[in-house]
């Protein structure tokens, strides 16, 4: 989105006012809005529309710094930055406290650009995290109560509007070139690169020079124009700049520092000096790369600013000191006030280098800062003074008889405007009246924003500030958004399924390993970074291996027979055949040779078999599925091997090791084609194991296994048997729905529940058979998996329904919404006088004692409606219309802040159906499945997740389509290191 578009949005929101941040009056913007756009791409192309900036359109568009827009209709609420600093202390989301450091627009911009923060989304400012959070807190709808004790006034819509306008303006803030109206520039900047179209009128024979720059980086400034100066006890004197400095090839320069002291009134140094122009504004950065000849701990190198043309006024000196860190000295005609900025941890050695010093003067405030080896020092008011600088000095003082030399480079943000870091130049012939220039993305240093200047000779004739906008067809590879190569440890179930599929179902239930993996409540447990082999898990694997081998050597026909033989040949055959299945690829000749060598030192076939099977099963080649692939030359991308691809498919579809057909397919020389993969999906999906495998993903999504362990009040009689049978019931319902080939979200639906005599009372039905049987339950009372007691008992507390628990789970896990962490010291509010909890609903009590608190209301306005919808069910999932004997249940609610689809419901059954029908759930379920298939955490907005959802929308929404869409993703066969 261009500056032009951004400001249009801003104007749309504040139609009656000027948007100062957009650098133009409303009238001038209107004229821009009427300017016709054209497209470089063919009709029907999915490419971005051309952002058009003519020289006339930008002629007055030089954007200045603004701290909040000028919004005349808004009451005085202070600057946007002040508002953020004052009010956002309890917003407590991830990058929360960082913004305390951002006291200027520049720091905000830098944080977003250079540090990768995302408070302000420059490409889509309305979606900026900052604004989303405020909207999340119901800003935009109504005022909000006082949020914490430090606030003197509530956060109001006026505050919100102020910050909103500032964000919009800041996001679009670029330095615009000016032009002479003779050349019109249109551009497409996407994953393929930059396409420029130039229209020249009048036509000139003189070629155009196109300069493409990085608007976030200035070129290093030269010291041309600076004066040399020496200040000693006898006074200041001019010095030959050539004698003081030595400019290097990389635009840095050596400055010779002299002077016996630089403290109090003894301010002795060598310097380069210049008067401050630009109405006093400064944006000066000095990098100190090296210091040679250091002989005194208080030698100093830095930037000194003065309120006068000499050193008789107010002075502020930010500097690197020989052995005493980074600091600021200040005073009036002397330097007698000290403030440490960064200490030197070990003062027995020179202060760390390189360092960056900064002096800024903007918005009538002088600010200084310094940091070690960093991009952008935090700047703040000097300790003593705030003045408008008239002169600035680049200072070096040796504090000794002998000089020092400091290698420095200077970035003068004022002088360098228009001198941004060049990334590409080209000469274009526009003698025909039109010209085109294509610059491939590889030549643009992966930049997201560019500054384009078109010059004819020395005259700037046009310019543009394109922001990269990926086309809809842009691949995730092109966007640098492929998933990463991973090693994935097999889950307990995958170990069991694999071993049973390889050796047969001959094992006792107690042989399988129980690994210490934990059970994550949010996300999927198959995350590749979560499953590990540690000491304990390896002990369990050894126990398993022993038990497995004991079974195999006594019960497996092939292995038992071999154990009884005297010839060793059968051991090798077993190694080769079962090794291929266990390691999901043939063993290499080197690996076979290593086995042979080791087996030669073991006597007896039984022992040889024990060694072989232990070594195969305890090997990392069995325990870890490799989704690493082979590094492609010249890239950071990895192409998965055929054997890795079939393993991904097999574990996704069957939760087990690839069968012989898949391994045979993998052995072909050519990469497995998509039709071949589709054929395998179709074949494998017919396996009865496929439904069970899909069911496991649903179970993990809903966290149903936790029903076995969730603590419940003893008075409820929620026995292990009941828990077991409820889980069994949920599994039956899931499998039944999967096998009915319902859509993958309709798998959650239905009012036929599997019930037996132990669970009948929980379901509220009369059923006396000890075996599970299907019972139709009134769908007005209980509907689908979200109303299944197994689900409800997991997501509740010891004895209560747990409105908050259920609400948080619904939002975070079922709908993939991001919630902030809860605030720190939240204490329950005492019940208002006169409220009797024994006759007050839990819903009302929650609101009276918790949600209504200022620190809580923002989140709980979202969380609570997502939990109210389960209130027709108690802690173990029994249906109810009253609680506490006679207090009516209110299970109604509206969820209107999780996207465009509004969930409105009157009962828990309605809520369940609303959830199932919601697009948010569909997107989230698909994303969770993809997380499970590929073992990596994803948000629905991530490239591959978005592509996956698009494929599902295009291909169909049956459970099988989850697999057919999976195999079409780039990351199914290719990964990329971040």
């Amino acid at each position, binding site marked *: 989105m261009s500056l032009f578009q951004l400001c249009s949005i801003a104007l749309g929101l504040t139609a009656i006012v000027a948007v100062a941040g957009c650098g133009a009056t409303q009238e001038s913007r209107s004229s821009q809005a009427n300017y016709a756009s054209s497209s470089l791409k063919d009709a029907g192309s999915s490419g971005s529309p051309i952002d058009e900036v003519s020289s006339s359109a930008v002629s007055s568009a030089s954007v200045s710094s603004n701290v909040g827009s000028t919004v005349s209709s808004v009451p005085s609420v202070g600057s946007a930055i002040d508002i953020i600093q004052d009010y956002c202390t309890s917003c407590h989301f*991830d990058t929360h406290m960082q913004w305390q450091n951002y006291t200027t627009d520049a720091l905000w911009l830098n944080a977003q650009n250079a540090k990768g923060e995302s408070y302000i989304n420059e490409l889509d400012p309305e979606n900026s995290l900052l604004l989303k959070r405020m909207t999340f807190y119901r800003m935009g709808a109504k005022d909000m109560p006082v949020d914490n004790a430090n606030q003197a006034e509530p956060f109001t819509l006026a505050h919100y509007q102020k910050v909103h306008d500032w964000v919009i303006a800041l996001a679009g803030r670029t330095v615009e070139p000016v032009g002479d109206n003779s050349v019109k520039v249109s551009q497409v900047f996407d994953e393929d690169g930059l396409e420029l179209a130039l229209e020249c009128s009048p036509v000139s024979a003189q070629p155009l020079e196109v300069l493409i720059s990085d608007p976030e980086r200035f070129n290093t400034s030269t010291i041309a124009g600076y004066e040399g100066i020496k200040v000693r006890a006898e006074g200041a004197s001019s010095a030959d700049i050539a004698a003081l400095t030595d400019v290097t090839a990389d635009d840095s320069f050596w400055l010779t520092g002299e002077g016996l002291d630089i403290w109090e009134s003894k301010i002795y140094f060598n310097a380069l000096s210049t008067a401050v122009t630009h109405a006093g504004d400064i944006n000066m950065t000095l990098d100190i790369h090296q210091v040679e000849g250091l002989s005194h701990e208080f030698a100093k190198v830095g930037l000194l600013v003065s309120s006068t043309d000499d050193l008789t006024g107010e002075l502020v000196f930010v500097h690197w000191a020989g052995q005493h860190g980074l600091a600021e000295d200040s005073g009036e005609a002397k330097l007698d006030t000290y403030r440490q900025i960064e200490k030197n941890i070990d003062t027995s050695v020179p202060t760390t280098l390189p360092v960056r010093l900064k002096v800024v003067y903007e918005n009538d405030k002088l600010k200084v800062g310094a940091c070690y080896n960093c991009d952008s020092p935090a700047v703040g008011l000097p300790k003593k003074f705030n003045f408008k600088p008239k002169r600035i000095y680049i200072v070096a003082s040796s504090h000794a008889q002998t000089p020092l030399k400091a290698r420095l480079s200077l970035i003068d943000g004022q002088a360098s405007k228009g001198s941004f870091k060049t990334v590409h130049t080209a000469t274009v012939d526009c003698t025909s009246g039109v010209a085109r220039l294509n610059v491939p993305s590889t030549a643009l240093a992966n930049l997201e924003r560019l500054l384009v200047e078109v010059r004819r000779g020395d005259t700037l004739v046009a310019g543009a500030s394109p922001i990269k906008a990926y086309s809809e067809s842009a691949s995730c590879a092109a966007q640098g958004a492929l998933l*990463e*190569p991973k090693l994935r440890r097999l889950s307990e179930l995958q170990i069991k399924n694999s071993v049973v599929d390889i050796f047969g179902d001959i094992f006792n239930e107690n042989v399988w390993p129980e690994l*210490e993996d934990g059970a994550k409540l949010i996300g999927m447990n198959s995350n590749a970074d979560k499953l590990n082999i540690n*000491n304990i898990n390896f002990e369990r694997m050894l126990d398993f291996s022993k038990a497995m081998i004991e079974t195999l050597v006594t019960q497996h026909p092939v292995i038992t027979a071999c154990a009884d033989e005297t010839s060793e040949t059968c051991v090798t055959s077993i190694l080769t055949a079962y090794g291929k299945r266990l390691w999901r690829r043939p063993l290499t000749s080197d690996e076979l040779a290593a086995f042979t060598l080791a087996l030669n*030192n073991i006597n007896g076939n039984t022992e040889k078999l024990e060694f072989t099977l232990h070594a195969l099963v305890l090997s990392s080649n069995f325990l870890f599925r490799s989704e690493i692939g082979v590094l492609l030359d010249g890239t950071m991308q990895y192409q998965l091997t055929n054997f890795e691809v079939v393993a991904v498919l097999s574990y996704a579809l069957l939760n087990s090791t690839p069968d012989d057909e898949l391994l045979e397919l993998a052995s072909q020389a050519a990469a497995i084609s998509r039709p071949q993969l589709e054929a395998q999906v179709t074949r494998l999906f017919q396996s009865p194991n496929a439904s069970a495998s899909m069911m496991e993903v649903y179970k993990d999504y809903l966290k149903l296994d936790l029903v076995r362990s969730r603590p419940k009040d003893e008075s409820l009689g929620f026995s292990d048997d009941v828990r077991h049978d409820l889980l069994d019931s949920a599994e039956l319902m899931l499998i039944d729905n999967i096998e009915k080939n319902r859509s993958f979200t309709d798998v959650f639906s239905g009012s036929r529940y599997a019930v037996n005599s132990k669970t009948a009372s929980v379901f509220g039905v009369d059923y006396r058979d000890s075996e599970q049987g299907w019972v139709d339950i009134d769908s007005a009372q209980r509907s689908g998996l979200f109303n299944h007691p197994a689900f409800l008992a997991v997501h509740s507390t010891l004895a209560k329904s747990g409105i908050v628990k259920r609400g948080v789970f619904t939002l975070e896990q079922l709908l993939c919404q991001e919630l902030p962490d809860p605030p*720190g010291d939240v*204490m329950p509010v005492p019940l208002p006088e006169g409220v009797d909890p024994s006759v007050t609903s839990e819903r009302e009590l929650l609101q009276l004692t918790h949600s209504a608190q200022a620190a809580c209301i923002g989140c709980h306005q979202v969380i609570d409606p997502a939990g109210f919808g389960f209130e027709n069910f108690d802690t173990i999932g029994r249906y109810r219309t009253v609680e506490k004997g006679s207090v009516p249940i209110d299970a109604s609610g509206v969820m209107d802040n999780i996207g465009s689809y509004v969930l409105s419901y009157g009962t828990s059954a309605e809520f369940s159906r609303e959830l199932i029908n919601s697009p948010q759930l569909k997107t989230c379920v698909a994303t969770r499945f993809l997380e499970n298939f590929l073992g990596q955490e994803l948000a629905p907005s991530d490239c591959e997740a978005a592509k996956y959802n698009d494929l599902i929308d295009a291909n169909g929404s049956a459970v099988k389509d989850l697999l057919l869409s999976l195999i079409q993703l780039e990351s199914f066969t290719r990964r990329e290191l971040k």
Partner: protein
Amino acid sequence: MTQFKTLNRRSLIKALSAAGLLSASSVERALAANEAPLRVLTIVLQHGWGLSGTSNRFMTEDTNGFVFPDGLDPLNSIKEHCTVIDGLLGLGEWGNNHDLSYADILTAGVPFGQQNSSYDRHMPLSVTPSIDYLLQEHSGKAAFRFSAAYRSWGVQYHPLSFDRNSSILPFYTKASDAYNSIYKGLPTLEMPGLGGSDSAETRLLSQVFEFIKNPAQQQYDAIPAAEKDKLDRYLLAVKHLEDKYSVTVGYSGTERLARIPEAGQSSLDDFSSYLDMVKVGFANNLTTSAVVGVGDIIPLNDFHHVHAHTNSSTYWNTRRTYAQAIVKMVIEMSKVVDFDDNSLLDNTLIVLTGEVGDGRHNVVKKGHILIGGGNHFDVGRLINVPVLTGSAKDGLRREDINGTLQTNVRWSRSASDRTNADLWREVGIKAGLNLTEFGLPSQNRGDIL
């Protein structure tokens, strides 16, 4: 120090030798160990032990120094063995620091700005090793790491212990599992390895462990750096079993477990079993360091809010229960005579700690309770560490992930001038480690003990 009962281990060893129950070499080995190491047991309680503040009860002072408040009152009976540190800093910057600071408790090594990890979105990890790991390295004996329901956010155990690769070291989460892994199969007297180093099974498994390292190493060499950590852990686990199956000495058998933990026993029983295993492990030189995490032992409706944030009788009753179990172990330790004829308690430092982070939580009064260790430093003291307020507090910094010292760490209005790094550095030195600093350099601010 007060001795409840003494039993001279040296005499016992000689007696056992005379009776032919210990080999001559074992006797020499045991008698040679005339300098008993300082063992370190850390008991980490969810949120912390608390001594004052909004969710806490205040300590009072008596003529002898201090009195533990109701709820921690069992500790008054062993007060002369206790050293109380009033307030330490931990991980800063974040308001809801309880969840974030787990990894910092034993490491002081979580960089500024880290708020999550691939392990869990609420739990950043440490870049420096934990004190128990350093002690393990020093002694060559694996630390005991147990969790009695010290968990949240769905993770099985909180990330407390780290090696030098920032890998989380695993905890046993069931006492029966810990027993099976550590104690089961140990003979009553000195044992020559699990089943004996000469057993056919041990020989075979040793060959297996040796063999499987090669393919893992080949795989290791071929994968991206980001994934190597998984195979690092795998290879460490292989070595762990390899070592376990090559053990030839260790368990002297002079102290026995009070009872064998049962599968499925309560978390509270697990806690008692863990303490028992630690005591026996220390007494018999199976290990020199241990960590026990204690959490949601008693099922509550909402542990985090109702239990940990509320100054309720339930909250304090749980602490009393934990404290009683600890006091029982302390008394038993005081009866065991160590290699150097001091009591085992005097050679064991028990540190009661918890989430020491601050953020908006005032840490000035977030206390640590030290028990035992009387042979290594003065005990029976209340130590008030220096407190910084106002601009002095601004001098508190912390390294970010790039090692750059960051300002504006969100300490409370006042903040302690000593940190958990200071405590562990001193403890480590007293336990024989050669440390000049511990954890992140910036967190080393001065001595405490």
